[in-house]
């Protein structure tokens, strides 16, 4: 099994990105490739589901940080859902909960795009 697999699927006007495995400086290229391709294609309403992540190093959070303003400038956003354990803890200690909207479930995150 690879260290990281990144699946995407559409839910209405939103693209759900589901990384499985871990994101560090070695595996982040694949995560960035998927996010870059979405933003470049104008798919700027993005939900990242963290349900299947074992850990995320700063490289993974940096990938979100580097693209979130691009997504917002295009009328969308990058939102995060279903973070658990250490991933959720690191998200908070880095202060990402102030940069990025988070939701308990993927469904809530997708629905949150309904109004904006």
């Amino acid at each position: 099994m690879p260290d990281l697999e990144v699946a995407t699927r559409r839910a209405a006007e939103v693209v759900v990105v589901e990384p499985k495995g871990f994101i560090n400086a070695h595996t982040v290229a694949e995560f960035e490739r998927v996010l870059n391709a979405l933003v470049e294609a104008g798919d700027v309403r993005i939900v990242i589901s963290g349900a299947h992540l074992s850990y995320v190093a700063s490289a993974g959070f940096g990938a979100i940080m580097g693209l979130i303003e691009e997504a917002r400038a295009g009328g969308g956003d990058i939102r995060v859902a279903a973070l658990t354990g250490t991933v959720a803890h690191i998200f908070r200690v880095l202060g990402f909960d102030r940069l990025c909207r988070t939701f308990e479930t993927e469904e809530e995150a997708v629905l949150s795009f309904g109004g904006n």
Partner: protein
Amino acid sequence: MEGIEPLGRDRAPLEIDVPATCECLSLVHEATRRTAIAEGFDPSAAEEIAVAVGEAMTNVIEHAYQGKPGHAVRLRFLPGRDTLRIELEHCGAAPTNLPAGVDLGRLARERRRGGLGVHLMRRLMDHVVHEELAAGVCCWVLERNRPGPRSPES
């Protein structure tokens, strides 16, 4: 078990040399995580320690050695009475300035993807410093306090 010291009480360090490549990050993560668990940290604390050590390793690979191949990092685990100390010794460049903190909003507006590693290390560990041990030899030192009350003699 006579002759074997109890876990976490000033034993000799465990030391391994690791190629300074991103391919080795998961190995370093797993070695650190398992060592922390063996030293009595709970699984979530062990995972945090492993992430912090991975950040130090990444800093050495990307900044000290500037991503150039053929270098190594000496990873040293030193279990003490009150802390687990982890050292990453390298022969690359020392960081010129370590940020005191980060402004995520500014980094995001500037579309920056880096600049979080040292901050994350400091948030996850109780003590983080970068030392120059000798000419051309540097070391990241990370310490995490052991859980629970300190022993009376500490």
